[in-house]
């Protein structure tokens, strides 16, 4: 339960008491299931993070048109002119 609260904090989630209780049980069950991977000896196995073989994708550094500013800003929950407005930070 304490661990659930800690992880929720890292993920910037605020959980209700019911959610905390529910997730503690469910996440335990799921993690226990995942422990089955320990049946496998992987000491000498390279991990796969990505299946594509290419490493870097380069292209010419040419200027291109960006998106329409107004269409992008139209999605802002709060704005001031061409800026996104957020609560005070400092």
């Amino acid at each position: 339960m304490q661990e659930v609260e800690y992880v929720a904090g890292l993920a910037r989630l605020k959980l209700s008491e019911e959610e905390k209780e529910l997730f503690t049980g469910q996440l335990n069950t799921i993690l226990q299931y995942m422990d089955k991977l320990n049946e496998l000896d992987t000491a000498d196995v390279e991990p796969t993070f990505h299946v594509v073989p290419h490493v870097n994708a380069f292209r010419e550094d040419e200027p291109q048109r960006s998106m329409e500013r107004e269409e992008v800003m139209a999605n802002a929950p709060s704005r001031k002119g061409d800026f996104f407005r957020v609560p005070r930070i400092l």
Partner: protein
Amino acid sequence: MMEEAMEVLTLSAHELYERFRRKDLSPVEVAEVYLKRIEEVEGRVGAYLTVDPEGALRQAREAEQRWRKGDGAPLTGVPLAMKDNICTKGLRTTCASRILYNFVPPYDATVIKRLKEQGAVILGKTNMDEFAMGSSTENSGFQLTKNPWGVERTPGGSSGGSAAAVAARECVAALGSDTGGSIRQPAAFCGVVGMKPTYGRVSRYGLVAFASSLDQIGPITRDVEDCALLLEAISGHDPCDSTSAPMPKEDFRACLGEGIEGLRLGVPQEFFIEGMDPEVEASIWEAIRVLKGLGARVEEISLPHTDYAVATYYIICTAEASSNLARYDGVKYGLREGEGDLREMYLETRSKGFGPEVKRRIMLGTYVLSAGYYDAYYRKASQVRTLIREDFDRAFDRCEVIVTPTSPTPAFGLGEKVHDPLQMYLSDIFTISVNLAGVPALSIPCGFSGDGLPIGLQLIGKPFDEATLLRVAHAFQQETDYHLRSPENLTRGGP
């Protein structure tokens, strides 16, 4: 509905192309028939989150102009539906999440751009599990979608809306996305064709990210020829997605009729597990018999790490998701909640905006990546992923195509698994190793259960060998009529 309109609804994309070309049907007529159909059956199915009649009719009029000038492409004037995690410029794109309830993309995904260049008509955006996390579409933040073959059943997920729309003839074909089976499993449940292309075959630019090393966009269609047509339209290298493969465009229809004489089909023993529905198993063996009759050879093969795929997948996909979904902070788009300071805004926005499954996966992913657990979970899973990949490499020394069921059961009931996340995860057992290995696979209808529910056959291919998958699937459809059946009585009464 008029008889003529009903006939229009039976036409596949390649049949529409012929009719448009011969000028005995017009794109505007066809769009109107589909918009009417949506009005009539949506109450029963619930496949769409957004229908865009004005946009669709505008695109249909433009398509008509193109046909008049003799400038029609294979998809010019063909009405399609898009999963709601694919960005459509000017048309709301929600990922079925309340956190994006009002998001209007300022750009088109590359796949949408390519379809629009061909003059396709986009009818609307389809329902899904929130952020594509789920196997039944029940995790949508907005509505349930019902399986057109039995409205008390789920359509599968996460691309349940797209698969249901194709099955209910609310569009000719659709796009979905597949991270662990999200195209193939709903295609199987709804009795349609669904393909997850090789990782990198189709650009992910404009697909809202869930698990970036697994996600791939693909077609959901009525038959294999349409699948080839759509794949051809959306595939190809894209500088906007650095993981998209620098492969030349391919004509996926060219080899459809070539037959499968002498082709080696691998049947992995690990996929015929305890708990598999006997009707599913019988249908798969019957399908293998049909393919043998067409000249294919059957080899027993082994994918020894299959049993570890679900655990591996749910570590990797939740890890990637927890990172990808960090962007939903209430600043630039979507929902914003919370009065006080910045931290309060993040907490309130994310807690009110995300549904339970998304929170669960963010929690799991954050946990498996956190200090002290990274090696035990994320690194370990990434190593097992290598073993799973190598299983496929070895298997493909002995065969060209692997044949399995798409799902251990036909469509399960609404509400049946939604409260038991692990049971829901285990229903993906046959589809997820394909994403971990990055190989292509498709599901085609291969039978029906005693209750009249569709059963899906999965064909898995070598990387970038979609052509062979399509050839085998097409040969099967020339011999069978499962893909020609359609659910009845959707317009009568309500649930």
